[in-house]
Every structure is written in C-alpha cells, then in structure tokens.
C-alpha cells in the first residue's frame, strides 16, 4: 500500500496523544494548574494534530464533516465519533484541572476509556480489510493499542509502566511482522482465484501502459530492499532502547530522548505497516507472485 505521510503521521502521533490522555484521565499523574496545562497541550497537539494530518489525506475535504453519519457499519465513522467524544470529555476534565484545580475522577476514567476506544477504532479501519491480509489479523489492534499506551506512559512520566508496555509493544510488533509475512498465503487469494482460470496464470499484458490510481495506491512497489534493516531500527527505537532507558533514573533529558526515539521508531514501524502491506488487487497486475511462490516453498519445506 502507498505509505502516505499524512496517514503515517496521523496514526503515530494521535496514538501517542490519546495514550497520554489515557494516563492523564486515570490520574497517573494527577496534575493541576500550569503543569496540567503543559501535559494537556502536548496531548492535544499530538492527537488533534494527528487528526488534522489525516484530513489532508482526503481528496474532497469539504465533505469531511459527513463522516459521522455511518457509525453503524463504518469503523472510520466510529473513529470520528470516538475521537470527538474523547477530546470533548477530556477537555472538560482538563479544564477543571487546569483552571479550577479540581480533579473529576469519574470523568477522567470515561475520557481514558474513550481515548482507548479511539485508538482501537483507528486500528479496526485497517484490521477489517480482508483485501489486505497483512492487516487483517487480531495482532493489528493489539499493536496499535500497546504502542499508544507505551507512548502515553513515556509521555506521562510513568517509567515502570512504560518499561513494561514498551516491551509488550515490541513483542506485539514482532508478532505482527511474523504473522503478517504469512497472512497473504493464509488468506488463499491467488492469481487463480482472482481470475478463476485453470492452470499457471501470469500477467501477459497490463490494461494500460502507465500507472493508475490503483497501482499508485494499492500496488505501490516501494524499494523494500531495506525492509529488514528498517525493522531492526524500528524495534530498537520504538521499544528496546526506550525500555532500557526507563530502567536508569529518569530526568527530563533521558525522558525526552526516550520519547523522541520511541516516536521515531513508531513512525518507522508505521511506514513499514503501509509499505509492506500487499493488496490482493495487485494480483491482477502480476504482483505478489514472489510472495506466493515463497509461501509455497515454505509450505513444502
């Protein structure tokens, strides 16, 4: 899939932002006044900034407001509702803490739950797509939720929780890659099922000489030569090194380093999430043959 910067930035940053809101809503830490203002400013910049980045992905943003309509069937619509609900509830909770010095704990819990739901709905937009087998697995929501919570723990200054959640997010990431590499073959969609032709099917001629919307968006051939190196970088930056940093006594310097590394690692991981994802429509364009051949070899071995 085409790794659009807007969508990568959105899912990474808003994940960390909503993760921070989860911890603030749970009262970990309970903050008031200016300290609270700084915490909430960071959380809202990340979450709202991410949502605005996602709006840049729309080809016709003037109709964006209509995306609240179909919550009964569409995870994207549910995400819109969850995000607005979480941001509004947490705004009241944050306002009371910042301006009145009052902590309305139950409201915070509700806001924390809604923030988690928001991250879950984001992940389900991808998880629901049977057409992209790599995403169509339960590891996707687990990875998104753990990454958001780990980022939130780091940003909210909870080193112990952060250490554990970073390791859990790292494990979820490793599982997602391991399982993701096998999902296309598991899904069972091949050139034979795509064309229902009997025999060895290969593309003889494309329907047109140039590229089109589909090949740019779904059959995007990124230089995946460095995918393994990027996976190592992503797992070290996103999980391993920040987790190690949480063991040593934290101050603002190490915390900032851990957060920046973590966010950089999550961005790398999300780039791979899109760039490595194979859409079944690629089969009509002769793509993924190597993938299926490799999986066939694996199943024979």
């Amino acid at each position, binding site marked *: 899939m085409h790794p659009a910067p807007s969508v990568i930035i959105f899912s990474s940053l808003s994940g960390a932002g909503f993760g921070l809101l989860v911890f603030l809503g749970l009262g970990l830490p309970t903050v008031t006044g200016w300290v609270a203002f700084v915490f909430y400013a960071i959380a809202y910049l990340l979450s709202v900034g991410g949502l605005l980045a996602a709006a840049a992905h729309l080809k016709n943003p003037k109709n964006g407001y209509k995306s609240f309509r179909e919550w009964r069937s569409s995870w994207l619509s549910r995400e819109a509702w969850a995000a607005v609900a979480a941001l509004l509830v947490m705004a009241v909770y944050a306002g009371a803490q910042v301006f009145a010095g009052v902590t309305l704990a139950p409201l915070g819990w509700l806001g924390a739950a809604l923030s988690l739901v928001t991250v879950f709905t984001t992940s389900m937009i991808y998880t629901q797509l049977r057409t992209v087998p790599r995403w169509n697995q339960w590891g996707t929501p687990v990875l998104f939720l753990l990454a958001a919570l780990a980022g939130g723990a780091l940003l909210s200054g909870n080193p112990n929780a952060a250490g554990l959640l970073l390791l859990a997010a790292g494990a979820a990431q490793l599982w997602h890659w391991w399982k993701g590499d096998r999902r296309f073959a598991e899904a069972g969609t091949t050139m034979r099922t795509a064309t229902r032709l009997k025999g060895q099917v290969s593309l003889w001629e494309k329907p047109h000489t140039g590229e089109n919307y589909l090949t740019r968006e779904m059959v995007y051939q990124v230089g995946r030569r460095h995918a393994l190196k990027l996976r190592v970088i992503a797992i070290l930056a996103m999980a391993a090194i920040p987790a190690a940093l949480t063991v040593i006594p934290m101050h603002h310097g190490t915390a900032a380093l851990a957060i920046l590394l973590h966010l950089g690692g999550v961005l790398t991981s999300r780039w791979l999430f899109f760039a490595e994802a194979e859409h079944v429509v690629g089969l*009509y364009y002769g793509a993924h043959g190597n993938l299926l051949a490799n999986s066939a070899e694996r199943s024979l071995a």
Partner: protein
Amino acid sequence: MTTLPASTERSLGLVIDLDTCVGCHACVTACKGWNTQNYGAPLSDQDAYGDASGTFLNRIHSFQVTPDAQPISDVVPPRLAQTVHFPKSCLHCEDAPCVTVCPTGASYKRVEDGIVLVNEDACMGCGLCAWACPYGAREVDEAAGVMKKCTLCVDRIYNENIPETERQPACVRTCPAGARHFGDLSDPDSDVSRLVAARGGVDLMPEQGTVPVNKYLPPRPKDTIAAPEMTDEGEDVLAPFLAPVAETPQGFLGWLDRTLEKI
C-alpha cells in the same frame, strides 16, 4: 445508508465471456466516453499527451495461462498455453465491502436493482472503499476528488429518451465480439442466468466473501474444440493438405540446384 440492503428486488449485472473477448478495448473506450459526458463528475485524465494517467471504470487485463502438468493420457489432445483477455469492472457484489466501510453514506447499494453507486455530493474522497474492494473497481478521480465506479450505465438502462435497444450499458452495447451480456442475475430464467448455468459461470475471488453479481464464463480449451475425430475408416479430410511436400526440386530449379551442388 452504508449498511447493505437485506435483499434486492433484482440483481442487475454483467456476464463476461472470456472465451469470446478479443481484448479490443472497445468497451473501455465506450465506457470512458459515456461516463465522461453524462452521469456525475467526468472521468478526468492527467497529462494526457505525456505521462498519461486517468480514471477508468473498466479495464482489460490480459493473462497467459499454462495448463498444469498432467499425464498425457488424461488430456488428449494435450492442452496448450493460451492468452485470455480479461475485462474487469465493478461486480456489484451482494456483500459489497466498499459500501459498509464508507463513513459518509456516499456508497450505497440500491434495493430496486442491486446496483452499487456513489453519491458524489457526499463523497469526501477518503479512498477507503477502494481499499476495501478486492477487484480494483473503484478509482478516485484526481480532478474531482470523488470516488468513481461503474454505474452499469444507470443513466442509459432506464433512459426512455433513447431507443429501447440502446438501453444497455455502453460496454455491452459496443462489444463487437458479443462477449458482454447484461441482465437480471437474480431471475433464474433470464438470458444471463441461463448463460451462466450453461457455461459454468464463476465468481472472482470467492474466498473474499463478496458474493459478486457479475459472472465470468471460463474460456474453452482452444485445442479441443472441433478437433477432427480420427477413426480407422479413413483419413481425415485435412490429411491431403498435411502430406509431406516433395523435397527434391524439379525442372529448371532442380537443374540449377544439382549444378550448383557439383561446383
């Protein structure tokens, strides 16, 4: 409404004969022409005289098929490789994933005839429906920023201002090979349903669970069609034409050949 209707009154769709399609792309051109001048936003092209790219609702892929290795005794005469031209557009699925993912309600499936359409006034161009479609049947128009897809020429098939014979999708009307058929696939007595039954029509990617309305008729193995039956009673009528040609040259050319050999 982006929830799917529980059932539709009719299931209008196409039956595409892969045995007959010659890959001429006439349906692509007719589709582009009709849908650029009539219903909804036109299908734009970008840099048409350079690095051309544009929106199409119907595209023809071509595949090469090599039969699986089988014992010769099983398939006589042995099947050969063949090319198959493969037209592909929206399949108007019963369980259309493009409809349920739409957050704005722009994508919908009509109860009265099962046609899947996009309300362009409500589309925000997020592209999620194109991601959800396994067949590549939806393309965002780069100029209008809205999702475009096959409408089964909804503005032709019900159009009382054109002669009745014209009230068919542009691709069906134009196909010079007669490879495309249009009708109600929910009616077992319709021409298209009988054609599907007679020729063993199939769904594309059945494992994706989309339950397409459009059906594809598989190509017949070319080298078994009308193959002369060989019997002991006599030679095949074509046999004289297949007799070996005399390799020894005669007449002047023969003399020239022999002379040149001697030199």
